[in-house]
């Protein structure tokens, strides 16, 4: 192998700035899409759920994931409950195999949300844990991008207000719903700023409760787009790039993608990224190796899928959605190794998918 031209950090930053690179980076953004699989934790002994609460352990596990999987970034945290817990949701931290979940939302309706002091809130709960982990990781890894994954505004709001009611109130009580989303976005923004100050290279958001399939195009445009963009602008103003993951089949909201202020857009496996790029050449595409294939497929199959994405010119290669914790390390290695060894933009028979 030839000498790498760019460090992993430079390569990712160049892609996010739409500059030329030697090949796509292969990353995994953490949060709902973390790669803290059981195989890694068993090897290292740094385990979940303990690592959700302890900065040293969180940093150590993030480093293990980076080292064993071959992803070219380090990512924290390993869940999407940090923000909601801070806002009053009861959280079950899960187990080694199973990610944390919201047990009970504190508010039955958007009308009953208490507006707490965000500047004080971010000093509490697990935000300091994440920030301390980021400080340690960014110091120890100057050449590797540290990505902090933050829960999207709609998903956070639907984790503090009973989601059944919340979705209905988007239609029945839009003004108050926007007020809750403003509040939540303010917290997420403050968290992101502190993460950037602590050394985060980029901020990522996954907002699985805000898919086009759930909200439809009208509500996606009215609620998801403005709050995600408010967050994106704040991240940009603080000097960091912003990666957005959109779950599910986004064909119904595709026309709204140019309105979103992301530096890279990550999609689920059913979306054709080359076609998306054809339609919207300005997008920086990221994705989208099927997590189903990663869990159940053979390494050769993963290598085929990955090589095709690289050859199709996808800008950043990553898993398409949340990884099952029972995904094997050998399958993830097949993904990361393939990106590092596949010639870009070249088709040859050896790599053609059967």
């Amino acid at each position: 192998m030839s000498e790498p031209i760019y460090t992993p950090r430079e390569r990712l930053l160049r892609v996010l700035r739409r500059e030329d690179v030697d090949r796509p980076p292969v990353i995994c953004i953490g949060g709902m899409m973390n790669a803290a699989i059981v195989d890694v934790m068993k090897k290292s002994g740094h385990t979940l759920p303990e690592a959700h609460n302890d900065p040293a352990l969180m940093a150590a596990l993030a480093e293990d994931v980076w080292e064993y999987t071959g992803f070219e970034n380090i990512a924290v945290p390993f869940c999407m409950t940090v923000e909601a817990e801070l806002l009053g949701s009861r959280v079950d931290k899960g187990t080694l195999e199973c990610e944390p979940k919201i047990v009970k939302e504190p508010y039955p309706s958007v009308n009953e949300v208490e507006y707490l002091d965000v500047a004080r809130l971010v000093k509490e709960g697990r935000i300091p844990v994440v920030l301390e982990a980021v400080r340690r990781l960014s110091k120890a890894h100057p050449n590797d991008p540290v990505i902090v994954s933050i829960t999207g505004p709609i998903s956070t709001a639907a984790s503090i207000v009973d989601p059944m009611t919340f979705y209905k109130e988007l239609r029945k009580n839009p003004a108050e719903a926007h007020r809750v989303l403003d509040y939540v976005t303010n917290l997420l923004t403050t968290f992101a700023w502190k993460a950037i100050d602590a050394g985060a290279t980029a901020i990522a958001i996954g907002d699985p409760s805000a898919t086009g399939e759930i909200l439809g195009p009208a509500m996606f445009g009215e609620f998801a787009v403005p709050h995600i963009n408010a967050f994106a602008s704040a991240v940009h103003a603080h000097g960091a790039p912003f990666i957005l993951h959109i779950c599910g089949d986004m064909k119904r909201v595709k026309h709204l993608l140019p309105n979103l202020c992301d530096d890279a857009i990550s999609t689920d496996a059913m979306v054709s990224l080359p076609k998306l790029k054809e339609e919207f050449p300005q997008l920086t595409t990221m994705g989208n190796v099927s997590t189903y294939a990663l869990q159940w497929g053979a390494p050769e199959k993963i290598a085929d899928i990955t090589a095709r994405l690289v050859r199709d010119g996808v800008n950043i290669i990553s898993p398409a959605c949340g990884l099952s914790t029972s995904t094997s390390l050998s399958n993830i290695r097949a993904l990361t190794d393939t990106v590092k060894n596949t010639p870009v933009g070249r088709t040859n028979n050896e790599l053609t998918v059967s």
Partner: protein
Amino acid sequence: MTQSASEIYKGLSDSVVGMDETLTVDIARRAVAEGIDAYQAIERGLVEGMNKAGQLFETEEYFIPELLLCADAMYAGLEVLKPHIRREDAHVRRKVVIGVVEGDTHDIGKNLVKVMLDAAGFEVHDLGRDVPPQVFVDTAIAEGADIIGLSTLMTTTMPNMAEVVRLLEKSGKRAQFKVIVGGGPVSQAFADKIGADGYSANAPGAVKLAKQLLATQAA
């Protein structure tokens, strides 16, 4: 059918589709006051409206918020009309035990499937969310269910769907039940892999699947 009855049916259907809970209740009360058959008002009014809402969902004119509001209207109307159903109209309903598998608390998808099954005349036992695999099996056996419906939105909890199938096999009663699965990360391929009887991508599809599986069974 009298003019008044057909107007009431249409009014109920339209108000469910129109997500208007208050109007649905008003029309349902008028139906009762005018002595219109409650069973017919439910079937040709409320259920008809919910089915239309389901079609609008399938054609992607309605999405989750709209379908939830239609369901609220339907249930509000049902509450008014149900006490007035004549005894002879009550019939044996096929039973479904449904829930979100252990480890997951996302239950909107499951709730929508429940709504559509209710509207289609199934008797639905809702176990709620974060339900241990053994509870599905025990409840299905105790209730004499026809179908077990499993839902999850999280990749990490999908193995619990396979565990339900495994426990059913272990109990020797697998053949008594049709197991159907659904939820964001779930697919037909996954359903096949774990030996479930069917998969649906959405709530209206789950009703079609349930009917189809029971029809095959009866044949």
